[in-house]
């Protein structure tokens, strides 16, 4: 009997509590919208807090209650926005996807230091201690405040000691933009792969002394962009991404190599047999990559061509096309070759 007593007692207690809980769950039932759970399921579930709510669950609740737009989840992007729209039965127009870029590439190789910093490895702390060790007051300190802020592990400090964003992993949430004490991280539309990787407002002659990739405000990029999409503001060009401009010529015209082009290989121009030798493209080419005499088919020097596409519009017989891909495969061979072989 002594063995049976605990069995009986625990069984009885279990039954009592079980009945109590099941009665309570009926009596204390709280109506909750099932679409909240459905929305939680399609959200990224990283609780990054970019939407302004502590968790994805709180954000889902806010959407259902109508406090927030269905497009509010930036890391989720267009896919999540459409999924939420499907659940709620509304049409959504997601915002253009953006990604973060670090507007500085002057690492230890390119820029000079004015002192050695041996304190807390954090950008904010370094700024407090005499505005950081770099001579450039707008340069990336490379101490990784943004790396720790990134919920997606998309920023790393390169061997050159500047922060670099991984375009594949970045969702454009803007957590790093908010945390950078020098405000040199910016969001650009994902389709634009070119940005100005310098934030220095100093005069050109001074910049040259402490950074080899610093913007000297020479305005060559402004001149290379006749559409007016680049304007100068306090010794620094400002790129207007809303303008229909690809900035390729501007990037390649920079004498200090301040621009960063995230595209590994831009497509090259090719001129086919339709060419009647009008030489319009020759004069349009900013890098003199096209050569040829009047009346003869022109040829493109593929090493010189930067893929800006300026000659495409000029050709009256549509003999010019862009060849090649924007990326490259790891193996060095295309998939198509592998299948046929």
């Amino acid at each position, binding site marked *: 009997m002594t063995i049976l007593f605990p069995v009986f007692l625990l069984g009885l207690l279990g039954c009592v509590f079980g009945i109590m809980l099941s009665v309570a769950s009926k009596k204390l039932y709280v109506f909750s919208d099932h679409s909240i759970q459905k929305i939680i399921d399609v959200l990224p579930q990283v609780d990054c807090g970019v939407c302004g709510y502590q968790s994805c669950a709180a954000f889902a609740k806010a959407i259902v209650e109508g406090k927030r737009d269905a497009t509010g989840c930036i890391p989720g992007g267009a896919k999540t926005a459409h999924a939420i729209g499907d659940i709620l039965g509304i049409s959504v127009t997601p915002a253009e996807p953006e990604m973060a870029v670090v507007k500085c590439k002057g690492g230890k190789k390119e820029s000079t230091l004015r002192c050695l910093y041996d304190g*807390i490895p954090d950008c904010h702390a370094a700024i407090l201690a005499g505005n950081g060790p770099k001579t450039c007051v707008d340069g990336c300190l490379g101490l990784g405040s943004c790396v720790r802020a990134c919920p997606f592990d998309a920023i790393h400090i390169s061997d050159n000691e500047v922060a670099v964003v991984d375009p594949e992993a970045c969702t454009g949430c803007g957590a790093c933009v908010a945390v950078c004490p020098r405000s040199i991280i910016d969001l650009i539309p994902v389709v634009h792969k070119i940005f100005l990787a310098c934030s220095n407002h100093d005069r050109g002659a001074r910049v040259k002394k402490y950074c080899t990739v610093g913007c000297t405000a020479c305005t060559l990029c402004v001149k290379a962009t006749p559409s007016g999409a680049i304007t100068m503001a306090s010794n620094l060009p400002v790129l207007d991404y809303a303008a229909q401009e690809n900035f390729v010529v501007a990037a390649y015209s920079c004498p200090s190599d301040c621009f960063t082009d995230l595209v590994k290989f831009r497509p090259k121009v090719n001129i086919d047999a339709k060419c009647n030798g009008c030489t319009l493209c020759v004069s349009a080419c900013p890098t003199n990559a096209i050569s040829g005499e009047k009346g003869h088919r022109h040829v493109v020097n593929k090493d010189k061509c930067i893929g800006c596409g300026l000659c495409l519009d000029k050709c009256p017989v549509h003999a010019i096309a862009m060849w090649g891909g924007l990326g490259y495969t790891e193996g060095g061979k295309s998939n198509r070759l592998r299948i046929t072989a």
Partner: protein
Amino acid sequence: MNIHALLQLVASSMLINNIVFTLLIGFCPLCGAYRRLSGAAWMGVAVTIVMGTTASCCWVINQYVLVPRSAQYLHTLVFILVIVSLVQLLEMVLEKFFPWLYEAIGVYLPVIATNCSVLAICLLSVGANPVTGRPFTFVEALVNGIASGAGFLLALVLISGVRHRLELSNVPAAMRGLPIIFLSAGLISLAFLGFTGLSFAPMFGG
């Protein structure tokens, strides 16, 4: 039962015998993710509520179910059952009647259901009162539960402050993360030894 003994019990459970720093129970939430002060404070509030209710309920179950059948050896098993069921019930009650409180502490409740410190307080409240030396009465068990929860809240808030400072300090690589938290907790624990002997007796002419 006088106010003096109760006050002394509160000081005892909260500071002198602080569940985290003196009894060294319930370290897991400290090492967990409560880096923000608000998170730590709400977690502490949740623990206080749960400890207060479970300690009193366990006292009742012990007094009227286990003791008459001299089945105190079933303490641990029965109390686990009681705690888990009560936390479930508490979750429902909060969601129904105090939605604002549920929003703040709802996420912590399932974590607390399996927290060792809650079970420890239940087991302690069927033992002897450290102040009077006699077994706990119902009111004393309730006060003990709430005060221990408040001590837990204090510990969480202290550690979250320490963690906040640690984030900006140059901790040696080998000590980063858990080791430095343990060390800091140990140092605070040493400081808590200073509460030993804290007495309200002089205030009441004792």
